[in-house]
């Protein structure tokens, strides 16, 4: 992080050199980083769509794992190349907020699926007679 004096001269010089990243702002991307991110995204989107639409993998489980895995990788790619996430922006607080959110999201997702799955499994089995009396 470059510690520049915040003077009026600095504001004038702002336009003169964009090349370096300012310490207090979230880093902007360059054209190159946007294009790299875009190319990666296109590939990471095309592969799962192609896999599902062509049915190339015989195993449904394997296809699902690949789709979710590539989705997770693409989210990281977007975070880095489009949202310019790094450990230094805002003194690390954006990363802290992100990690905290991911933990909560993980608990909410895994917890809901786990609890509801077990609820389903432990439901009283339905007999044929009960099925007929369903609304």
């Amino acid at each position: 992080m470059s510690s520049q004096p915040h003077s009026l001269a600095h504001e004038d010089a702002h336009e003169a050199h964009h090349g370096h990243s300012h310490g207090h702002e979230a880093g902007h991307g360059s054209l190159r980083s946007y294009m790299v991110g875009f190319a990666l995204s296109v590939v990471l989107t095309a592969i799962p769509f192609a896999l599902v639409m062509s049915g190339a993998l015989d195993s449904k489980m394997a296809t699902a794992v690949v789709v979710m895995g590539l989705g997770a990788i693409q989210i990281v790619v977007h975070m880095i190349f489009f949202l310019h996430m790094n450990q230094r922006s805002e003194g690390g607080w954006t990363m802290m907020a992100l990690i905290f959110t991911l933990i909560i999201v993980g608990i909410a997702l895994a917890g809901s699926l786990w609890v509801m799955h077990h609820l389903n499994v432990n439901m009283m089995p339905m007999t044929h007679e009960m099925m007929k009396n369903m609304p």
Partner: protein
Amino acid sequence: MTNATQTEAPQFYLEEEHHPEGSTMLGFWIYLMSDCLIFAVLFATHGVLGRNYAAGPSPADLFDLSLVAINTAMLLLSSITYGFAMLQMERNAKMETIFWLGVTAVFGLAFLSLELYEFYHLIQEGAGPTRSAFLSSFFTLVGTHGLHVTFGIIWIVTMMVQVRMHGLIPENRRRLMCLSMFWHFLDVIWIGVFSFVYLIGVIG
């Protein structure tokens, strides 16, 4: 560290906004994280209810994956064109920034139109949100994302007018950076939607 430099040069505050730019970006990021929690809960709901078809149609019967692929391409293209707008903003090129914001809005509108077409088509087929738990959670999740995109487009048009009227002043730069985070964030959520809802749904 920043506190020390700011007390040395208090005139910085007279020239800038009332608060340092950094806190706005962090605050907006925390808003996005809270939005992320909303979507996480909707994803969890869909994860729980997504297989409850109530003897109705399943994702494999309903979803047209080529339409979803085109939709995804629209949103991805809008993301990169917003990136171009940000690059033009850094170059201080006012008209180019407005142009790329306009392109982004058009891609966003294309995305929204395709999604509304899909919704209309589903409801016409009798697969509306009231048909089954799966469709209720599907419409809630994808609809909430669509609503975010709608407001994103309204924001983009607002910023086009603002930049046109006032130029690339620090306030507008700050707003454009917040909008940039918002727009890219919506694309990140869409990755979850097309992977988890559409592709996994069709696999079954």
